Structure formats: structure tokens, C-alpha cells
């Protein structure tokens, strides 16, 4: 029955998957769970009992600050103002400078496969508003695909915090900002004396310390037709794929993972890529890059950088790359 359902869905746009599908999450003993909404997703925290209030307050404040500065969907955000002033000089805040610097470093590190300057292309493809507000079906438009690479011409003067964004270039920090915010949240918790925590921003997650009486955090990874758990001891996990952010533009299936070489959404037979790294921002960039590169080159990319990954194909099959712990993956019934 399940396979028949899968077969029916192969030629259709993938069904939207809730970030927390019908899974019964277990809160580890001695820990407490908290949620809030930010950056267009659900932020989940696992914190030691007794430290939940302080931890939640610290992390919520951090995410609100980051969203206010970096959201492209808020017209009053600093990023929106920077994008509006493309073609001139702009003095940016420390936070925006930090994220821009990281994004440019990630772009260089992936030879431009990760590209923070594809906002114009995304908007032309229809993703010009928060995904929650995006209709599933959009009218057809003539889209002239433009390759990326505009990030190469961005000028940054760090001492003065001055950014020169060339005319026509627009920045989108959606994924990288979430990954960086998760890392920053863990750091802020440690500064507040909270040394055991899990922070999950819509699937981009990182852990620090271990819950009492256990040697790992049990993390579910969603496949197309199955869910597995892996025991994460330390580090971060992020997943990029088609399951959630996709829509139709006329007859065309669109999604948010654009190949900067073509300016078009990637269709390479992959459903999702999960990457494991030391920092959440690394996992986020690695998952996105591996997805865009496709199975073979993506796996080679992860291996080259000593990262681990799980590749799930659109037909539901899966393969691992790097040091992904296949032997301790447990499929949930």
C-alpha cells in the first residue's frame, strides 16, 4: 500500500511534510522541552529541568534579534534595507556583517555552489514572500534563468562595516542565518551556565553536552517513506531537500534549492541530503551544497571535507556518505 502511494506521488509535486510529522518525541530524563516560532519555523529547545526559563528567554531573545536584522520578508529589517540600497554603500551592524562575512566565506569554500545572492532569481520564481503565505499554485510567468555568482562582486570593508552591494544584487541569508543562529544560541546558553542543550531550528540542530544517564541524543531523520534515528553524541545536523519548500508556477514544479550554474531549481533525483558537522552552519552549507551537486559529486564533497551525510533519492532509496553511522541507524516502525 505504501509503495503504491509512493508510486502515485512520483509524478506529482512532493506532498508538504510538516517539520514535526506524526512522531512521538521523547524528552530525555532530566530535560524539559520548549518551543517558539521564529525565522519562519519552529524553534525547539531541550534544556535541563530548572534552567528552562532562563534558557528559553536567552534563546528567544537571540532569535528575535536575528530575525529582525536578517529577515528578507520584513521590509524594515536591516537586510531588506541593504537590498534596497544595492548599488551604493551601506554601513551595516555587527550582526549583518558577521552573517555576510560567513556567507561569502561559505560561497568561496564551495566554489560558489552555495550562493547567497540568488534572491532575485527566487523572487522571479515566485518565492517572494514568507513560505507560510506562499500559495501552492502560482500563475505561469516567463522566467529567464540567470546564473548566480553575483556574490563575487560584493565589496566589504570590515573595519568601517561598510558594504557595497552592486546594483541588481540581492542577498538572502535564509538557511545560513538559521544555522548560525543555532550555533550562537548554544554559545549564549553556555555563557548563561547552561551546558547541556539541544537547539533545533526547523531541522537545523546542534547539541552541547549530554542528557543525564545517556551517551547520546536520539535524532530522527525523515526519509521520503521512512524515518530513522541516529545517536548523535556531539555536533550538528542539517537537512536540505524538497519536502517542504516547493510550489507550482504554472506547469513548472519550483523549489528553493537553486543551482547557481543555471539559476534554476535543481532536479537531480535527490529528495534530501542530511549532513553532520561540528557546527550547525557547516552542516547547513554542506547539506545544501551536496544536494545541488547531486549524489556522486555531493558524496565526494562530503568525503573530501570529512563530513557525514545521508542521501535520500526521490524513489525512496537512500545511500550514505563520509562517516555516516549506517550501523547504528535504526528505522522507526
Amino acid at each position, binding site marked *: 500500500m505504501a509503495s503504491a502511494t509512493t508510486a502515485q506521488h512520483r509524478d506529482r509535486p512532493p506532498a508538504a511534510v510538516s517539520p*514535526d510529522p506524526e512522531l512521538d518525541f521523547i524528552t530525555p530524563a532530566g530535560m524539559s522541552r520548549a518551543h517558539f516560532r521564529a525565522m519562519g519555523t519552529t524553534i525547539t529547545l531541550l534544556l535541563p529541568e530548572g534552567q528552562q526559563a532562563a534558557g528559553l528567554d536567552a534563546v528567544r531573545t537571540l532569535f528575535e534579534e536575528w530575525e529582525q536584522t536578517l529577515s528578507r520578508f520584513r521590509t524594515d529589517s536591516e537586510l531588506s534595507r541593504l537590498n534596497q540600497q544595492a548599488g551604493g554603500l551601506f554601513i551595516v551592524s555587527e550582526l549583518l556583517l558577521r552573517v555576510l562575512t560567513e556567507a561569502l566565506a561559505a560561497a568561496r569554500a564551495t*566554489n560558489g555552489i552555495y550562493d547567497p545572492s540568488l534572491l532575485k532569481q527566487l523572487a522571479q520564481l515566485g518565492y517572494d514572500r514568507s513560505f507560510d503565505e506562499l500559495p501552492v499554485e502560482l500563475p505561469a510567468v516567463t522566467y529567464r534563468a540567470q546564473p548566480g*555568482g553575483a556574490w*563575487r562582486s560584493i565589496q566589504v570593508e570590515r573595519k568601517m562595516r561598510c558594504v557595497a552591494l552592486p546594483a541588481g544584487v540581492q542577498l538572502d541569508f535564509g538557511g545560513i542565518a538559521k544555522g548560525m543562529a543555532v550555533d550562537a544560541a548554544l554559545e549564549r546558553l553556555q555563557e548563561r551556565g547552561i551546558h547541556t542543550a539541544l537547539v533545533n531550528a526547523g531541522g537545523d540542530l546542534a547539541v552541547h553536552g549530554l542528557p543525564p544517564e545517556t551517551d547520546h541524543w536520539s535524532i530522527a531523520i525523515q526519509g521520503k517513506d521512512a524515518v530513522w534515528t541516529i545517536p548523535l553524541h556531539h555536533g550538528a545536523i542539517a537537512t536540505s531537500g524538497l519536502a517542504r519548500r516547493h510550489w507550482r508556477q504554472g506547469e513548472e514544479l519550483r523549489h528553493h534549492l537553486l543551482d547557481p550554474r543555471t539559476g534554476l531549481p535543481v532536479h537531480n533525483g535527490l529528495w534530501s541530503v542530511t549532513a553532520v558537522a561540528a557546527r550547525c552552519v557547516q552542516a547547513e552549507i554542506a547539506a545544501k551544497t551536496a544536494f545541488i551537486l547531486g549524489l556522486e559529486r555531493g558524496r565526494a564533497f562530503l568525503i573530501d571535507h570529512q563530513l557525514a551525510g545521508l542521501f535520500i533519492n526521490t524513489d525512496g532509496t537512500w545511500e550514505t556518505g563520509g562517516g555516516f553511522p549506517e550501523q547504528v541507524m535504526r528505522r522507526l516502525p
Partner: protein
Amino acid sequence: MVSNNPYDESLSWIPAQGKLPAEPGAYQRQITFSQQSAYAPAPDVSFSRAQTANAVQTKVEQKKPRPAQAPQQSPRMPKAEAQSLAKRLKKYIIVTSIAAFGLLSWLVAGHLQTAATSQSTPNAANPPDATNTSASDNQSGDDSPSISNPADSGSYFDQQGGGYGFGNNGSTQGPATSSGVS
């Protein structure tokens, strides 16, 4: 003029103008005193120039070779021994030269490798645009992105702080959270 101030004792330190010291050695002692540092303790004994000159003269005389000890002709080294010594010296020079050349080559190679690495790997913490650069630095100039040289990204994906790790056994309990597609 004679001062009538009975409290002014400084006058007794001033010698009469235009008069030579009466004592013959006084001039020499005065010179010796003036050559002392202002911060040095007063010398217990001062030597006259004549005494110093005598001492120097004695030393020089002691160093002069006596006519009796005129340079002696050392016996000539036998030819075989000289050749053997020359051979040993040649060997030593060759070995030292090779070792020095090897060391220099190693240092140059190490320097070139370090320079090449630091030029090609952007550092996440201190990216090359630390002052004022274009984001296109370190790029080949090719606008079409490719992944032909993933080694360039070494420092960005460095697994700091212990990297990542997994538990030894599969989890027997339900998941604490999930890494859903973002």
C-alpha cells in the same frame, strides 16, 4: 673684596683666581678627580698620569717578544700528511655544503607550501576580506561556479571543537527531536 658673611663657607672652596696650585701633585689629582663619573664613589686612590703611563709601558714591554725568542721555523709538514689533511678538509667542505644545501631547500619548500596553503584556503574566522577586498578574491575569474577544487574549502569546513560524533549503539528510545527538511 672679602665677604663679611660668617655663614658663607663656600668661599673657602674657591681657589684664588690665576694662581697655580702650590702642591706639585695637586694638578694631577684634580684631573683624575674630574674624570670620575658624578655618580661614582670617590676613589680611594688616584693615580697620576705618570704612574698610569708607566703601568701601560710595563704591560707593552711584557708583551714584546724577547729577542731571544725570535720566531722559530716550524718543521715542514710531510707531503703525505698535508695531502691527507687537504683530503679531509675537502671531504668536510663537501659534506657541509650538501647538508647546508639540503637544509636550505627544505626551508624553501616548507615556506612555499605554507604560502600556497594560506593563499588558497580562506579562513572562516579571519576571511581574506578582513580589510577591504572583493568577495571574488581567490577565485579563478570563471563566472560559472564549479566544484573542481574542493580542497580550497579546507578551512571553512574544519571540524573545530572535536567535530561531530555518534553514540556507539543505536538508540533504544524514541527520538528527542528530528532533523526535518528545512
